[in-house]
């Protein structure tokens, strides 16, 4: 019963937030749209994204091809739609991986302190010492050109972000008396951390993750843009922007503008959702 009232209160708060902050509402709708496209994929695209048509290359937007066609005559709208799943998938995968590993490492370091904390801290410092994008490039180059490695590289360069955040959050809570109470209650250190501390930092960590998603999309697309990871003809926003970029001078703007716009929209949407989530969890920060 208490759960029901708590859930009801959460939704009432969420509703209030959506009404008060129109931008979050807009972002929420965009997110729903992106998810539908990601799930629907090829089924929702008007054309096959890989079918070339030499008779209709580099055609501008028209009723038949809303976003125009590329140099091989492929329908850009279909390619943008089909790429959604891959781009979101890579970002979500990378964020999930770094969230899981980073939170665990940071929480353990923050709770135990001492040499474990020192070791984890130094490893994270080492990762941060590299220009992150260059490090990602290096990882993909070393491990091989594949989607899985893009996800892995993006996850690794993101790791310090989660580890440091989790460490700071755990450090604050470690001193609270409810943690002492858990120790008094016969909980072993691992259990104190896993059952009593970590669940309480998850909401704030989730906000960070959603803010981070936009950045992960950009990173994955960026790697593809410079030719690492996803290989043509697979549709992916970064590659499409890269392919279209050579037509900037000749004026075929639609080749890079539409995939680029999809990228911007997704990043924008995740950042706004992150802000909205933060307000939902911590009403004090609401302005």
């Amino acid at each position: 019963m208490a759960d029901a009232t708590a859930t009801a209160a959460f939704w009432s708060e969420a509703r209030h937030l959506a009404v008060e902050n129109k931008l979050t509402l807009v972002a929420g709708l965009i997110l729903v749209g992106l998810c539908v496209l990601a799930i629907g994929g090829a089924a929702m695209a008007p054309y096959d994204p890989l079918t070339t048509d030499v008779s209709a290359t580099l055609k501008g937007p028209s009723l038949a091809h809303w976003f125009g066609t590329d140099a091989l005559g492929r329908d850009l709208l279909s390619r943008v739609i089909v790429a959604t799943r891959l781009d979101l998938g890579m970002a979500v995968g990378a964020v999930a991986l770094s969230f899981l590993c980073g939170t665990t490492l940071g929480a353990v370091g923050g709770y135990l302190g001492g040499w474990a904390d020192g070791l984890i801290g130094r490893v994270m410092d080492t990762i941060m010492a590299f220009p992150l994008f260059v490090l990602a490039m290096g990882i993909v180059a070393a491990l091989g050109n594949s989607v899985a490695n893009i996800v892995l590289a993006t996850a690794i360069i993101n790791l310090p972000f989660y580890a440091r955040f989790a460490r700071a959050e755990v450090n604050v809570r470690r001193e609270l008396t409810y943690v002492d109470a858990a120790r008094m209650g016969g909980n072993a250190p691992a259990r104190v951390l896993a059952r009593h501390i970590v669940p309480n930092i998850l909401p704030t960590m989730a906000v960070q993750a959603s803010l981070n998603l936009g950045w992960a999309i950009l990173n994955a697309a960026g790697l593809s843009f410079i030719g690492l990871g996803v290989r043509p003809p697979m549709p992916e926003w970064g590659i499409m922007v890269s392919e279209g970029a050579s037509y900037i001078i000749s004026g075929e703007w639609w080749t890079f503008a539409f995939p680029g716009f999809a990228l911007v929209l997704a990043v924008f949407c995740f950042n706004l959702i992150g802000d909205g989530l933060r307000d939902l969890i911590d009403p004090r920060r609401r302005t």
Partner: protein
Amino acid sequence: MSVLLDARNLSKRYPVRHGGRTGQLHAVDDVDLAIAEGECVGLVGESGCGKSTIARLAARLLEPSAGRLLFAGTDIGAVPLRRFTTRPERAAIQVVFQDPTESLNPGFTVFAAVADPVRHLLGTGNAAAVEARVWRAIDDVGLPRALAQRYPHQLSGGQKARVGIARAIAVEPRLLILDEPTSALDVSVQSVVLKLLGELRTRRRMSYLFVSHDLDVVRLICDRIAVMYLGKIIEIGTTESLLRVPAHPYTRALLAATPDPKRRGLQIARLAGTATSPIDPDPNSCRFAGRCPLEFSRCSVEMPALRPLATDQAAACHLAGVLP
């Protein structure tokens, strides 16, 4: 009455850096304190005097730097903290913390919070037995059963304080350590909680170590009172005798500083001077020197020992028992 908790020469020192060199902060310095079965001992003093450190040492949340800690005859101070979690004494010593909000896990319902120690410490594995104990504790602190599925943020301050007490008594401790249990509460809630604690003590036959900065609160509930100053117990005695004839000048100053409408308009001499630093204090000087109104030459060359007086008390002052 047999002794339940017996702290001997208990010390807690922290290494600190100040002025470019490392020193030792003497949080608790060579303290002897015994609590008998069923007894309630109050521990009072200013913030930073070490009273909360003693509470945490006695609760085995902190490792002492030196000294012995005997619980019902066993030296529990010798058991490393990590292993103490699984010792039978873990359930026998429990703590009620100061801030009822901070001491409750925001993600645990009332029931889950009270059940957590019962499951781990009285590991019978029998769900019905656990539940029965939890309900008994919740009933004992006068918390309506309807609140059992609520989260801390859905409770009032007084209700949260009751949950903190229920959680501590659910495992049937023999010693309950109360660390400023009412100082974060409103007067109206404080009186309710104090009465509840007084009642539970007789009903559950527990011993209390009651830590507080408020002599008036301690006076109501404790059989004996120990007054601390800078890591040392400077006076200890039965409540009645200590309050009637306080022997240590610091105890007197504490009593005179307790607000009382009857003293309206009176000019009372207050403690002047600055307190001695707790970092590497002079072992041959009285800790109260520098603030003491009665200080004389001997005080800075000889640390007064806690010595028994004719009344039911002991004080660490060269002049104790000499002055009126």
